[in-house]
């Protein structure tokens, strides 16, 4: 019992990270139709900027989490406004090439600015430490992460379904020409959505700093694969699907590691293959 609960908790917390990254990825794909391969790099930048704020400017976790991702948003703005904007009309391979180029550029920039070695973050204060759950210690911070994930999900849902801006985003997402015809400034909207998606990824990075306990150049490359799997299982462009898929994937791989160690590396791929066989459009994707 103790073991099952802890394996579950470990899976939930790791699933929440994948969700935070996958949510930005999904949002950008849903609205802009761009598969942003560089999303993992923005996650990495979020981690590095938050780390820098935390270590060198203000030794406050919340300020790091606020300012770090905001800096990354500025980078995201430049990327959309001056690069990505010009490939919307081109075929998908061009978008992948461009975003992949940014993966390489950001990895090397991080190496130049912060060094090639790994960095370890300072203590984060009151969220540090562990609480006993059924007689085994569990980190407070992970409980916090398990709470943040659904919070972001609910906030996103409210923003998209219940606000004026959300309604415009949904309109542009379902038919960009019509939206533009009725007076929505689509290019500006795209920039806004892209920057917001980047913010979600960077927030994931900022939150990952104390969770992983380590920053390395290239840390975005592992998570982007998982986030892609989640986005595909959930149905490309579906936030609801991404949330559910992230939870399932996190818990499943945690159980796999504990109880079926021989299969843990391809359990997630089996899940993806199975879902795609039954529902090629993903759990909540539209069958367009």
């Amino acid at each position, binding site marked *: 019992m103790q073991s099952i609960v802890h394996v579950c908790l470990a899976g939930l917390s790791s699933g929440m990270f994948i969700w935070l990254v996958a949510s930005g990825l999904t949002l950008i794909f849903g609205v802009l139709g761009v598969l942003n391969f560089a999303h993992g790099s923005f996650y990495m930048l979020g981690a590095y900027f938050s780390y820098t704020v935390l270590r060198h400017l203000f030794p406050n976790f919340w300020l790091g989490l606020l300012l770090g991702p905001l800096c990354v948003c500025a980078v995201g703005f430049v990327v959309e406004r001056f690069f990505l904007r010009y490939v919307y009309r081109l075929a998908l391979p061009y978008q992948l090439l461009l975003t992949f180029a940014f993966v390489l550029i950001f990895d090397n920039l991080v*190496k130049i600015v912060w060094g090639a070695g790994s960095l*370890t973050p300072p203590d984060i204060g009151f969220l540090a430490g562990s609480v006993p759950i059924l007689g085994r210690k569990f980190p407070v911070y992970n409980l916090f992460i398990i709470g943040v994930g659904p919070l972001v999900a609910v906030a996103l849902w409210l923003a998209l379904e219940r606000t004026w801006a959300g309604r415009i985003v949904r309109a542009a997402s379902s038919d960009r020409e019509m939206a533009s015809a009725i007076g929505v400034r689509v290019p500006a909207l795209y920039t806004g959505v892209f920057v917001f998606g980047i913010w979600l990824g960077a927030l994931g990075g900022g939150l990952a700093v104390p969770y992983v306990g*380590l920053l390395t*150049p290239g840390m975005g490359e592992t998570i982007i694969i998982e986030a892609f799997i989640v986005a595909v299982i959930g149905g490309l462009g579906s936030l609801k699907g991404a949330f559910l898929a992230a939870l399932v994937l996190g818990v499943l791989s945690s*159980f796999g*590691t504990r109880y079926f160690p021989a299969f843990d*590396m391809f359990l997630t791929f089996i899940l993806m293959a199975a879902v795609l066989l039954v529902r090629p459009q993903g759990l909540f994707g539209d069958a367009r």
Partner: protein
Amino acid sequence: MTRKRISRRELLKLAGTGTVVAAAGGLGQGLLLPRNLWAAPPKIKGPVKIGYQAVLSGTLAGYGEFHKMGAVMAVEEINAKGGIAGQKVEMEFRDSTLKPDDAIKNARYFVDSWGADFLAGIDSSGQALALAPVVQQLDRVLMVTHAATEKLTEEMVFKKGIKQIFRICTPTYQDGNAAAFIAKDFPAVKWATVSPKYEYGFTCWKMFQDTLKKLKPGVPFVAESFAPFGTTDFRSHINTILDAKPDGLYSTEWAGELISMVKQGREAGLFEKVKHVIFPVGAAMDVLEGLGKDMPDNIWIAGRYFFLYPNSKTNGEWVARFRKRWNHYPAYVSETGYSSIYAFKAAVEKAGSKDTKAVIQVLEGMSMNSPAGNRVFRKEDHQAIYDVAWGKTKADPKYPFKIMGEMKVIPTTVCYNRPPFEGPGTAPPF
């Protein structure tokens, strides 16, 4: 690369000096001085070119930087003192990316396009094994400075006769067999592991078990959890260990993954529940500096080299020079990178040639002094034999990280497998 063009006049001048020097040398050798001791350095043609590759991208990019610091420092020192056999050393450094096909591409580039005389570096065992037949075909000596698989020296060099390969760092025997000699003295009776889910992790854990079973018959191994390369979340693995309730934990996790595992293990109370812990590659500088005070006390750690061992003049001075040059403590790959260049120097000067065959002949059985102490390249399998310290982690006010307190050395004569590597009496304990 810009190559200076030599004018006709300079050429004549050079030729002139060359003749005089050669004549003087011949005179000296023939008439005045004892032959071998005082003879002018044997002449070799052109610069000595070394192609070095290590990982410079991805999560382990820091390792490549540490390789580079050691190797670059050796090249600078050697060139400042007149080079190898009077010739300048040139080194080119490339990113090995940890992928076998990139390692092969780099090696081909170094030899075929750049004109390398020697190759060095290589972090992953998979790369080293893939590269073996290629360096045989390219016919250049490859000095492996990090990859540890025993198959490289046992199978590629000893059985298949790929004589071009040498290894200057310790092999898996150090991480597997030697750890069992450390473990045998613990009161711990039940062992478990969290180790990398690839060749290196499997091999070391098997060696550890095999040797410990012989040293302490009946010792149970209660759990194993293998983490794939790139794991950042060790919580499920830690749960596996806690569920099995061992009193000893053996882990060959390394670099950033070891840092993550230790931090997450602390949060889960792992080191309170499991009292005896061995990290065979825990004495890497990136791990010690990365963890700082988060590294628990009383853990047995080792590496391929640790800057406080041996307590010799050579080592002490080297560490001081290294810190002055790079403002870092040397990592173990810095030491192996540094010493590999000096191994080439010693071999070329003794052989009087850069010729691969001649250099191999000298390197076989060659003994050299290095920061890590005296190294001898075993003739049969080209494995460098040198002792590495094990130690128990301890805080020290002089350092911002944990160092080895109580140290212990398991001599290589005791813990290394011996040629012919098959049959009884070739694996420890002897």
